[in-house]
């Protein structure tokens, strides 16, 4: 599959601070790519370099097969972006804002503008918002409008920085559904987030950024693949140990980790021996565990020199 977004050795240095330290990203057509990292790990700087807002200190960016920022004028109209939260002119209505933004660059014909604006407003759930100025919008409504602005030209690639910020649980579910729908119809999604749960539910591949370095990049399914063990929830962990001698890997209260990747087999042995079982599950690491193992302490934690844990 072709690379829709590709970086090699991308780095950005602000004075003595290295914000992004040589990252190689590779997002293929059809991916929902989760770009994970703690606050301050360099996610936003990377997104800004992708879109040509910040000039890399070194390294290259290719979007849709063309070099950025040289090809910005050809490429960016085919990319929808949400960068560090939405921003609009508060005294204008949502549709007026979208209209001005659409008219400000190439690739959005005037003829279809009104139609496209009405369509995306419906899509993001702001169809009935009418002429209210953006100043009077709630945080969630602004977020929806920002997403609408990104969708205005049916982009092939969506670069979204924290797209569910400020949305309530219903809104988050709704937007997740919208993004998955768009992905099914061929839109590649690059999702930058520090919300592990969000990435876990949406993405097919992930890259984890830690202090400017990409410490992990893999298929999500591979990262959270079964470990070959089964988790048994039981009130009698000692009896499990007695029945499955030698296969018990760890006991944590009523939670027993047993070697063997088939819960049914484990269950049959325990039930046959009369051990009460409340629950059984295939053991797989959560994305959270994977990320915490790969990344170090939070980047916005500032320890005194020599006293870092």
């Amino acid at each position, binding site marked *: 599959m072709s690379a829709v977004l590709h970086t090699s050795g991308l780095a950005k240095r602000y004075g003595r601070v290295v914000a992004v330290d040589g990252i190689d990203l590779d997002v293929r057509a059809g991916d929902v790519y989760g770009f994970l990292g703690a606050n301050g790990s360099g996610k936003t700087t990377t997104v800004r370099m992708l879109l040509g807002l910040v000039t890399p200190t070194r390294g290259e960016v290719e979007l849709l097969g063309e070099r950025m920022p040289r090809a910005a004028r050809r490429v*960016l109209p085919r990319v929808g972006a949400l960068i560090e939260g939405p921003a609009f002119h508060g005294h204008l209505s949502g549709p007026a804002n979208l209209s001005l933004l659409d008219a400000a660059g190439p690739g959005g014909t005037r003829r279809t503008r009104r139609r496209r604006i009405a369509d995306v407003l419906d899509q993001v759930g702001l169809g009935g918002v009418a002429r209210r100025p953006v100043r009077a919008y709630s945080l969630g409504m602004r977020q929806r409008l920002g997403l609408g602005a990104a969708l205005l030209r049916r982009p092939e690639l969506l670069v979204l920085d924290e797209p569910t910020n400020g949305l309530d649980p219903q809104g988050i579910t709704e937007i997740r559904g919208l993004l998955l729908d768009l992905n099914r119809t061929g839109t590649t999604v690059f999702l930058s987030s520090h919300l592990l749960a969000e990435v876990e539910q949406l993405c097919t591949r992930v890259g984890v950024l830690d202090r400017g370095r990409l410490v992990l990049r893999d298929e999500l399914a591979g990262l959270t693949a079964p470990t070959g063990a089964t988790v048994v929830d039981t009130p009698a962990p000692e009896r499990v140990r007695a029945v499955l001698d030698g296969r018990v890997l760890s006991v944590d209260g009523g939670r027993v980790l047993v070697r063997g990747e088939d819960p049914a087999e484990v269950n049959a042995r325990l039930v046959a021996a009369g051990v009460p079982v409340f629950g059984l599950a295939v053991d797989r690491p959560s994305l959270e565990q994977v990320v915490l193992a790969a990344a170090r302490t939070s980047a916005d934690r500032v320890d005194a020199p020599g006293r870092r844990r």
Partner: protein
Amino acid sequence: MIGVELRKLFGRPRTWATIAVLNSLPVLVAALLALTDLAPRPGEGPPFLSAVLTNGALFPLAALAIVLPLFLPIAVAVVSGDAVAGEAQAGTLRYLLARPAGRTRLLVAKLVAVMAFVLVAVVAVAAVGHLLGSLLFEAQPVGGTSVSGTTLTAEQLSGRTLLAIGYVTVSMLGVAAFGLFFSTLTDSPLAAALGALAVLVGSSLLFTLDAASPIAPYLPTRYWLAFVDLFRDPIPWRDVSRGLALQGVYVGVLLAAAWARFSTKDVTS
């Protein structure tokens, strides 16, 4: 793109409020003059004001002379300082550039919008002045008196008034260029506007200082009042043409600097 910026600027209530405030001072002066009949003596107070009681047709010029030292530069500095820094502060700059609006295009569009504002503001002051002059004072539409004492025909007077409007507009473009340049340096529109004003205040101050006389010809405010010369007979073009050339150099250099800065800047707002 230019259309978008014009729509943004003139679709904004704040722009018209600025122009309204700008006109409030000439309105107040006109009202006071009409009520008291106390015109400043010739040679005192703002140029032309001493003559308006006898000829209201001169009030547009008096109005320009009233707002020229402070009100007009403040308005222009605020609008031009807001041009790029305002978008940066609101966060809309990153979306414009990712749209992509193109940095040079955006800067040119901002420049044109600011120039349009300058023109609209100057014309508005002149138009309101004309209205006040013909309503409150005895207008003599058939000609007027030049500063030199000779008589000007109505055509000459209106032609020279248009020239004066043009000259003041060019003078204000220098202010706009400072504002736009500072606007590309900072993400704070307030800082950009104050920067432009600081230059003007500094320039006005140095102009009064004898020790600064070697650099006086190069101060941006040096030839601002040369538009008065347009109403002498015959017109002494020396200061007017020097003023135009000086503003041209300032505008050219500052715009080049603004472009160099903006086209390579990391947009982190």
